[in-house]
């Protein structure tokens, strides 16, 4: 089932010195339900712009976006690179905040928050303030927060970009497990090729500016993904194929 169809999306900016910069050109992509799509590309190519357009944080110049379920658009989850937690609220209060804003605080949704705390290993930190958390814990909280209102679509903009390699591996495993358990559709922007291959069902490779879709690679790896998978020939093949594509771009 198709969830979102993007048709010929284009977007340009005016830079600080007055130049017109074409960030995205004629990007067409359809997102199926329950997919995990990673978007990779040379730095500054407009990967994030694509997510920001989808979430209505930015406008686009031309093209069309079709949401096959209108409810989707008003109820999507977004995880930023910085956790963007409110510093005066505890982990629990931060996670519950979207429910308050959306007037969705019911026994059911609050029970769901408890499940999320459990799922993201945040139980013992529920009363901690953000400043007491490590980078990984902050990002866990941020993910749990974006899932509190049970969105069907989750957009993630380099959520693990600022974390160290160990924490990142750990969170990759957890995110993959979360995706399988909660049946979300995820769009994930990253600059890390291994991360993209490890997590995704499909990887979208964007070209250098003006960004078009260079290729879409379906990742045909076992459903059950462990860190050891990264040492298998299949995995390494995907990575080097994608790396080759990216190198062509720059």
């Amino acid at each position, binding site marked *: 089932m198709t969830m979102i169809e993007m048709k010929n999306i284009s977007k340009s900016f005016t830079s600080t010195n007055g130049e017109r910069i074409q960030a995205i050109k004629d990007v067409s992509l359809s997102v199926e339900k329950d997919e995990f799509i990673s978007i990779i590309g040379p730095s500054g190519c407009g990967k994030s712009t694509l997510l920001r357009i989808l979430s209505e*944080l930015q406008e686009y110049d031309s093209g069309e976006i079709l949401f096959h379920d209108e409810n989707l658009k*008003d109820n999507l*989850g977004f995880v*930023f690179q910085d956790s*963007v937690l409110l*510093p*005066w609220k505890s982990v629990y209060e931060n996670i519950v905040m979207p429910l308050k*804003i959306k007037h969705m605080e019911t026994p059911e949704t609050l029970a769901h928050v408890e499940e999320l705390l459990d799922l993201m290993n945040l139980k013992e930190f529920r009363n901690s303030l953000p400043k007491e958390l490590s980078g990984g814990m902050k990002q866990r909280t941020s993910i749990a927060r974006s899932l509190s209102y049970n969105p069907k679509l989750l957009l993630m903009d380099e959520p693990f970009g600022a974390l160290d390699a160990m924490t990142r591996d750990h969170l990759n495993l957890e995110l993959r497990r979360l995706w399988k358990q909660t049946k979300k559709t995820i769009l994930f922007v990253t600059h890390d090729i291994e991360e993209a291959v490890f997590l995704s069902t499909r990887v979208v490779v964007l070209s250098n500016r003006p960004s078009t879709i260079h290729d879409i690679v379906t990742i045909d790896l076992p459903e059950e993904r462990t860190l050891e998978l990264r040492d298998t020939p299949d995995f390494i093949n995907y990575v080097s194929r994608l790396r080759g594509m990216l190198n062509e771009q720059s």
Partner: protein
Amino acid sequence: MNNLKKTITYTVISLTVFVLVWQLYISIFDVPAFILPSPVTVGKEMINQITQVSFYKNMLYTLSEVLLGFALSIVFGLLIGYFIGKHPHIKRLSMPLLVFFQVSPKIALIPIFIIWFGLGYGSKLFVVFIMSFFPIIESILLGLGNISKEMYEYMKILKANRIQILTQLEAPCCIPYILSSFKVGIIQAIIGATVAEWMAGQLGIGYLQSFASSTFNSPLLITGIAFTILLGILLYGGVTLLEHHFQRYQEVKQ
């Protein structure tokens, strides 16, 4: 609780030492009473004052100026500050004026306020208002300016409305800055009120001091100063209590 006891003990000790040195200085150098009266003389004058109705009239007059003027500056400061903060063009237009008024020695402007608003209550109220108004505006601009773009984007993702953005994001982010401005503002307000009373009018703790000064009544002058300080400590303490209540929002500043 233990900490409070310690603070009180130290305060009592330091005040006692201060009064002893003062008394000693007068006894040793035989200072005339009109230049510096002894603590005992001042103490007598204090007791004399607090048994008189006129003293309470003066205290209440000053207190009401400060509280009412401060309340007005909070209401207008918060409203105007938020309005300026949310409109970049108006912010740019008003910035030179804000800087001008912020750095201008407002004490020096009191005579003109007296011309505008008369010798009575009005001019004092306006002085208090203007003293605390600008720090409050500045604090809101500072607080709003410190909210990151991502925070606003997060609210947008949640489809929060304007009121929710105000109550859930902007107000909490401004609270610590506003409270700091209250601390500056309330002291400024007391200075403004007493100085304005010196210059004009016939009531208030500042008037009492100016009267004492012109009649060389040093014990009364020092009594007036002491009660001005006491007023300042009480009001400042009130703001500190408020700050304590909103302790959690201090995280915004880190």
